[in-house]
């Protein structure tokens, strides 16, 4: 399968947006640890800013950056959201309420508890009526999301935004899923090259045994975040060099991405 990466967005610790992060991802600037900037994305209306949950806001922050850099209209873009863990704050809040005698679940928490809540808020913000799919494959959720996005672009011949995001769980859930840092990234993929400077990805499922390592500067605290497993691909986009990235997927297969600057024949 072949897709073209039009634009990307990123929100992570010391990775505050693509422009600021690109030199770091390209290995040209030092990464400095800083908490993930959790701005509320202004693409959301005032009402949705108020209602939306943390997971939705972080995912949409990254997606908004990729959308605005592309010049495309959000209503012409389908979405694939990939997350391993969903919203731990909401799980904690609801489970806490359910363990209480009154068992009063907040209606807002409940409707935000669906795994596709970020997709719902995004579609409202962009007025996109196109397909949206939310996938989970535990630590391999990004690889599964990438496959789905590539299949979508290939079969449906439409642009698709792939958004990967995961956040730390609060106490006491943190112990059963120890993720330290918040991270989200968005990749706007198209079936054909739309503009110069985009990168071509050839994506396949291969019986490879090696997996591309995290760039060496990535702190350990970020490596436990399932969404951060896209960092080798973000780095490839930042460098814009030909490169092969293999992502762990199943026990017997890897999602292999041949990255190539699209200007190269």
């Amino acid at each position: 399968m072949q897709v073209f990466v039009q634009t990307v967005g990123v929100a992570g610790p010391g990775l505050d947006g693509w422009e600021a992060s690109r030199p770091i991802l390209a290995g040209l600037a030092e990464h400095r640890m800083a908490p993930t900037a959790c701005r509320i994305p202004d693409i959301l209306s005032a009402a949705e800013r108020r209602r939306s949950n943390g997971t939705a806001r972080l995912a949409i922050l990254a997606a908004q950056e990729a959308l605005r850099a592309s010049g495309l209209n959000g209503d012409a873009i389908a979405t694939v959201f990939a997350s391993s863990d969903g919203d731990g704050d909401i799980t904690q809040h609801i489970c806490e309420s359910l363990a209480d005698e009154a068992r009063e679940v907040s209606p807002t928490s409940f409707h935000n508890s669906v795994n596709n809540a970020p997709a719902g808020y995004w579609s409202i913000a962009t007025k996109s009526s196109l397909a949206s799919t939310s996938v989970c494959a535990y630590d391999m959720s990004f690889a599964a999301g990438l496959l789905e996005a590539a299949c979508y672009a290939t079969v449906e011949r439409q642009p698709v935004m792939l958004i990967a995001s995961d956040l730390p769980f609060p106490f006491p859930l943190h112990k059963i899923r120890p993720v330290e840092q918040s991270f989200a990234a968005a990749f706007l993929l198209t079936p054909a090259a739309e503009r110069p400077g985009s990168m071509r990805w050839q994506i396949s499922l291969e019986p490879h045994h090696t997996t591309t390592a995290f760039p060496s500067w990535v702190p350990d605290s970020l490596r436990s975040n399932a969404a951060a497993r896209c960092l080798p691909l973000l780095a490839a986009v930042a460098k814009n060099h030909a490169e092969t990235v293999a992502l762990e997927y199943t026990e017997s297969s890897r999602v292999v991405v041949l990255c190539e600057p699209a200007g190269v024949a």
Partner: protein
Amino acid sequence: MTPLTLTAMAGANSLGLGLSATWDALRQDRHGLRPNDFEDATIKTWIGRVDGLEGEPIAGDLAEFDCRNNRLALLGLRQDGFEQAVDNARRTYGSDRIGVLVGTTTSGILETELAYRRRTSSGELPSTLRYRQTQNLFSVSEVVRRRLDLRGPVASISTACSSSAKVFACASRWMETGLCDAVVAGGVDSLCFMTLYGFASLGLLSERPCRPCDAERNGLSIGEAAGFVLLERRGAGHGDIDLLGYGESSDAYHMSTPHPEGLGAITAMERALARAEMKPIAIDYVNLHGTGTQANDLAEDRAVVKTFGTHTPCSSTKDRTGHTLGAAGITEAIVAALCLRYGFIPGTVHTNRIDPLIQSRVMRTSESRPLRSVMSNSFGFGGNNCSLILGKRS
């Protein structure tokens, strides 16, 4: 699209185990709902519970996956010779050429809910809680894949109540791009406190068995179910039912309220028709999403009338199974397949008087008649919609 054949089907829901239990219940106008007796949940509502899950822990190699949702998944797989059919497909294609896609909304969250009651004095959860194998949404796909010994691509799909309709769309893409030669597509959702108390908090649970399209409908009945199909290329395997089309859309309107005119639903149905290259007149029956809430049924009715007019027979079968959420898409796809196979349109079982505001042709009583193609609708929170078209091989 290139049609795919459903070469095997299996399911377990409140109507019973296996396709024959579902078919018998359809034919005999039987429902599977009962007054809520789930654990110690005190909500006054009716539920579609699967009997016996409490007493059937998962043993052996997969014991670490033991939880209500995965028990239900394995119970579903054991029905209707499904595992044998997958065995045969594995011999034909190789285990790495068969994918697994399972829809779920809450997976094994019940384990975490119960663990919260057993927190230590310092608030810690018990160390026996197995997150990856229970609560995580991927757990159900992992257990299905391991049980069936498959090694192709795998993912859980979680788009609320459209989850296990969406698996057909994803499976079709996986086949179209050559990633797979066959896909096990399904959905599993089981009763838990989050769902019952969550829907109660929204005022969406009826205190009676749900009555889709009734003038006095006042909410849904929650159910649990597992369902699976094996999808292969047409001509590659035996089967009398084909997937002819799917249509996906987003409402882009509100997180938990459908667009009043059903715009997202219209788009999903039209896209399914376009993909199947069919005209609305070719659809002989629409299995509605039909949850039994005031807003949902009315919005879907507007959409069905806009798409089909007022002559196409339609009904919801959630008054028999309950709303099985992430398993609703697959459960109703299987119902649609049975309707096609046996030439049957199910009527409603609890609905007394059709809402005069509802204009589509809702079938009060069941009818036997040959059907060629059937649409099944699934719409979820977040405005995520998916319509499927299944057809009978001539």
